[in-house]
């Protein structure tokens, strides 16, 4: 990939990726409240409407978990452990508060570990349901109201429906802009590499929505203008998993001679494809997006009359992405100790393979120290599908 060193948007993404939270620190100095959050399930629209600067927590794959092990068991998701370790080491010392949504056991069973050790002025556990029927939508709206109430109390300001509606528009626009950038990966060779894309995705989740949109827009403009890479004779790979937020993984794929052209990650396609409907009651649209549109394994999908119908409802979008992005092979990258993703492996693997796309399943820690084995398996997979 050429020209990335001099391109303003990509350079900015690179900086925000390397110095994660840099912008949040600046905003804090300017007097903004900074609220950290975990997972794709946090309704960022509410945080934006509240006027705070949201930042999604990330882990640090190239740093060993040290301090965090004194407080959190090693049977927890290694990504969560890494993010927690970074937090207790003060990497997110700019945060005024945090939101932990109920995604999985590794998050909700450690809520008290997080809250008591970080001891932030604001803390909220958002009890997102696992099922999506009518009662769950109403319940989700109730817990969103509780969430809004706690934020209002903390900030001393009212969060109006109008502000929420505006935030919904801003985040939908942000998602649309990111999808436009993804489209540039449909070409062969893709106009933006998987490594560069990872930096953009990570940088984007560290910024307020308007700044995030501006960054994505500038990256898209720059990438469109620069010459396309010459090497189009590479296998096109999709990666599936939860929060993979380090360039080591796309590097492992692309250094082995493939292009990473699309993902189904919780910082990527999973969050940028579904929008919030602009409903009269804005909480209705938010509840529906986070419960029914987000495709994450902690939301149970089973309304179909047959197992096959449910498979389509759960994984149909993966086949769509595979077709749209002309994917030659998929890598299922699951963290150890992850029950929600781990229990899906046979189903998702066989579902994708039934469409003729080979799948490599990898279970690993969240650490660059264990990646040598992963790289070898990726190389073998690429040889196999060559």
């Amino acid at each position: 990939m050429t020209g990335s060193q001099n391109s303003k948007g990509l350079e900015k993404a690179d900086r925000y990726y390397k110095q994660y939270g840099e912008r949040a620190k600046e905003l804090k100095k300017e007097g903004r409240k900074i609220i950290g959050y975990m997972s794709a399930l946090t309704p960022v629209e509410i945080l934006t409407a509240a006027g705070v600067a949201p930042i999604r927590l990330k882990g640090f794959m190239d740093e060993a978990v040290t301090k965090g092990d004194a407080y959190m068991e090693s049977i927890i998701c290694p990504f969560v452990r890494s993010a927690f370790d970074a937090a207790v080491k003060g990497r997110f010392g700019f945060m005024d508060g945090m939101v932990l949504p109920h995604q999985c056991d590794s998050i909700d069973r450690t809520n008290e570990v997080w809250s008591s050790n970080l001891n932030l002025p604001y803390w909220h556990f958002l009890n997102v349901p696992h099922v999506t029927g009518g009662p769950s939508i109403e319940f989700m709206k109730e817990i969103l109201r509780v969430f809004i109430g706690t934020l209002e109390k903390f900030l001393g300001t009212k969060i109006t429906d109008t502000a929420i509606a505006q935030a919904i528009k801003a985040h939908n626009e942000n998602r649309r802009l990111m999808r436009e950038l993804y489209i540039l990966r449909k070409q062969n060779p893709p106009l933006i590499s998987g490594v560069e894309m990872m930096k953009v995705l990570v940088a984007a989740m560290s910024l307020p929505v308007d700044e995030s949109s501006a960054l994505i827009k500038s990256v898209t403009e720059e990438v469109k203008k620069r010459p396309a890479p010459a090497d189009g004779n590479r296998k096109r790979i999709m990666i599936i998993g939860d929060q993979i937020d380090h360039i080591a993984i796309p590097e492992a794929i692309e250094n082995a001679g493939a292009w990473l052209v699309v993902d189904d990650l919780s910082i990527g396609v999973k969050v940028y494809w579904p929008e919030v409907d602009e409903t009269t009651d804005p909480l209705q649209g938010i509840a529906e997006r986070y419960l029914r549109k987000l495709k994450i394994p902690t939301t149970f999908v089973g309304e179909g009359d047959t197992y096959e119908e449910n498979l389509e409802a759960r994984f149909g979008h993966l086949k769509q992405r595979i077709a749209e992005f002309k994917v030659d092979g998929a890598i299922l990258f699951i963290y150890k100790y992850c029950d929600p993703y781990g229990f899906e492996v046979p189903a998702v693997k066989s579902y994708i393979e039934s469409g003729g796309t080979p799948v490599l399943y990898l279970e690993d820690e969240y650490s660059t120290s264990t990646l040598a084995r992963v790289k070898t398996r990726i190389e073998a997979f690429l040889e196999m599908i060559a």
Partner: protein
Amino acid sequence: MAEEKKRRAVATKTAAGIPKFVRGNLSATLKAKEEGKKVAKAFIHDGHDEIMRAMDIVPAWGESFSGVCAAKRDAEKFLQKAESDNFSRSLCTYATCHIGFEMAREEQGGAMPEGAPWGGMGRPDMILGNGQLLCDPRFKWPQALQHYLRDVPVFVTNMYYPPWDPNVDHHEQEKFYVKYCTEELHETVKFCEKVTGKKMDWDRLAAVVDLSDKTWDLFVDTYDLRKAIPTPMDTGDAMNTMVPITFNIGTQEAYDFYVELNNELKEKIAQGIGVADPEKYRLIWAAGLPSWFALNDFQYFNGKGAVFPVEVTYRDHEKIERLDLPKTNDPLERIAWRWVRYWTHWYDAARKIPGSTPKVARIIEYFEDYKCDGVVFHSAFSCRSWHAGIIHQAEVLRKVYKDIPILIMEGDIVDISSYNEADTHNRIDAFIETLEAYRNKQKN
């Protein structure tokens, strides 16, 4: 067949009757078809027990099945079967053991896998799951199982309770949580009616719920007898005597079991018979499912004069009066209130201890009431739902009780590869020394 560990001796005669209960539950799933009943793969503590009992649905308890495989030290073949289709060994081993068993049966065209413990478990006609504030496998296991039992319908509900937050008054939230749980339970009934082709008998359900309430009360009264010094029963037995209330709640047999246990404990107390003679140290089993393949470790403790008069694990019931449940004519709403209040009734106590949590408030209450000297936790590597947060609980306890002796054991519920008997016993020996040193320090 792997080597079967010598059966654990039990301190109460009543507990010796537990294998009959477990066999009976397994056998009911095998006989269901000829009796015209439907079998539901179900989970304990999901609020579904009374619905199933009132509709003559036979529960097939996956956790129990896997626990039996583990206790017989014969789970490995099923764990490996699941692993062969890419289920990681780091996932819940209750689930992977059971899924491996069902995979083997399907591959054999429905024939019972060789060596299935106690005749095995019947093939389910439906799978009931539940999203909760704990335990992802309660909705992922059903989904994963259906991959191999594609004709079996799955229904998953949500049973939430207000999360603990020292700064938020949970009382204000209870109503909408109960409303949600009640609606979810009504959806469950509709699903069960569809699968069974039978309508719910609401009067019968109300009677089953009443019987459950009575059993909750009797269970707590009976376990409270263990406050006696020396204690007439410890956690080694409780890991057996939990079976009726955990797997057979809403049945007369469960209630009768605790009548018998209650009588026996009173007799033992009258005669001054304890689990250990002499009883030197009283411990609380503060969290963690046990290693089912190593229940003899409780006897190892007992042999050192250490007894567990109380445990948190499987004591998922409380005196109904203490829960202060609002009146309702809907038995499902009754279940919902009981469920929500069971969790939240510790919150007010937790607020009174700065830095505490409901889990710790509960341990403290038991620790004081049962006059304990030390705390033991067990951390099972494959289960995050009950075993994450133990370090934090231990830390909070240390803040309250300073240098209180605390042991965190490590192992698993089903996977014996995680277990080393010699190491475990060495750790227990060291802990006993700590208890002795702590006691001497207290005296001085």
